[in-house]
């Protein structure tokens, strides 16, 4: 049977990808951030994942305002890298796992999560930066990837509570897939940041630290944070943290924190990386 072995929370700041692509990770600006990624890469490699479900948001690349799916799953066998307005990132093409992805789509819809299904889509930094952060610069990504997009660009995104429940439904779906697969799930975006308006540059270390602590202490309580509270306390783009609840909902309630890294700034953003492991999968 397939099983979810771990969850990874990871910011997806585009500048982190640019720093890697341009070989700038050792500069005084970037070194403190990247030195915290090394141990995480070892931990992820040890998990030996076959497939990663990456929960992220597209940033006006694969999708525009023409059609705005709240929850979408990519079922293709291959996802090209998007041109986000300055050419595509020089990273490997992303290979999917269509069998598991289609199983997820069917299970989730019958479990009352009305997914949009994408047979063709590109993937942007929201997906590729967390892969780069946690695997480095391999010639091919070391596992198959199922993109799961959440709208956080057009207000309102789905609530944190709804995202958590989607995670629980993903867990049920993975648990019922007959093939032996080791699955990890990424919740990406965040932490505190605001990219727009006169208040751009907002960071709230206290909010972020409490949030990281509560991912293990009180994951259900954490789902009650309103969109307005995210925007007020963690910046307008901090609301991306709802996507972390999808990841968290897919894990055991008593999942354990095995790694944490937090650094300000990555461009305009507080960047975090946390790895949580399921005791049941140990």
């Amino acid at each position: 049977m397939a099983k979810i072995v771990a969850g990874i929370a990871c910011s997806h700041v585009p500048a982190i990808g640019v720093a890697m692509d341009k070989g700038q990770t050792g500069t005084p600006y970037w070194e403190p951030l990247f030195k915290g990624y090394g141990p995480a890469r070892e931990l992820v490699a040890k998990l030996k994942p076959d497939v990663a479900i990456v929960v992220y948001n597209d940033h006006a690349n694969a999708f525009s305002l023409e059609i705005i799916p709240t929850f979408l799953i990519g079922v293709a066998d291959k996802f090209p890298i998007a041109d986000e307005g300055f050419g595509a990132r020089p990273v490997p093409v992303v290979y999917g796992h269509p069998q598991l992805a289609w199983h997820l789509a069917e299970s989730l819809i019958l479990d009352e999560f009305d997914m949009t299904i994408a047979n063709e889509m590109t993937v942007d930094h929201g997906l590729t930066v967390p892969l780069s952060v946690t695997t480095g610069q391999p010639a091919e990504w070391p596992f198959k990837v199922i993109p799961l997009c959440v709208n956080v660009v057009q207000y309102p995104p789905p609530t944190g509570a709804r995202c958590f429940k989607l995670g629980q439904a993903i867990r049920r779906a993975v648990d019922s897939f007959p093939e032996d697969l080791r699955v990890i799930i990424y919740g990406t975006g965040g932490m505190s940041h605001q990219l727009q308006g006169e208040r751009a540059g907002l960071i709230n270390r206290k909010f972020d630290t409490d949030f990281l602590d509560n991912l293990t202490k009180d994951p259900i309580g954490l789902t009650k944070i309103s969109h307005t509270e995210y925007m007020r306390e963690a910046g307008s783009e901090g609301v991306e943290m709802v996507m972390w609840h999808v990841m968290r909902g897919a894990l055991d309630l008593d999942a354990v924190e095995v790694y944490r890294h937090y650094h300000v700034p990555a461009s305009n953003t507080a960047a975090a990386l946390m790895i949580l492991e399921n005791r049941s999968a140990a």
Partner: protein
Amino acid sequence: MTQSNDYDNIPGTYVYNAERGRIGYALNMFCMSLNKAENRQSFKENEPAYLDKFTLTPEQRRTVLARDWLGMLKVGGNIYYTIKIAFCDGLTFQDVAGMMSGVPKDTYVQMMLAGGRSVEGNRFKDAAKAAE
């Protein structure tokens, strides 16, 4: 009728809600077109002519041609879309964030290195005003 929302009193923040989604659609879809290299080239060659292909309001058109980043948000621009114009200009998110918050680039970069803009005094419009 414009609906009031509990997030309206967050200072310096333009939530991309239904109202902005309605008035900003054409502006943002123009920005979306810049994901294609050939469109970026056409835009760079003749900005006014390129903009003629889209049904922007005069004010939306002005903000684009003037690179009035904050102004774009006020007429329905969404930052993930308007940033595509900045990418055309060779600017980064951080450059544009500095311009929107009205400080020189170095000042903004230093603020971020020092831990970012504090939330204290920046939660509510009234408090932000009182702190001035």
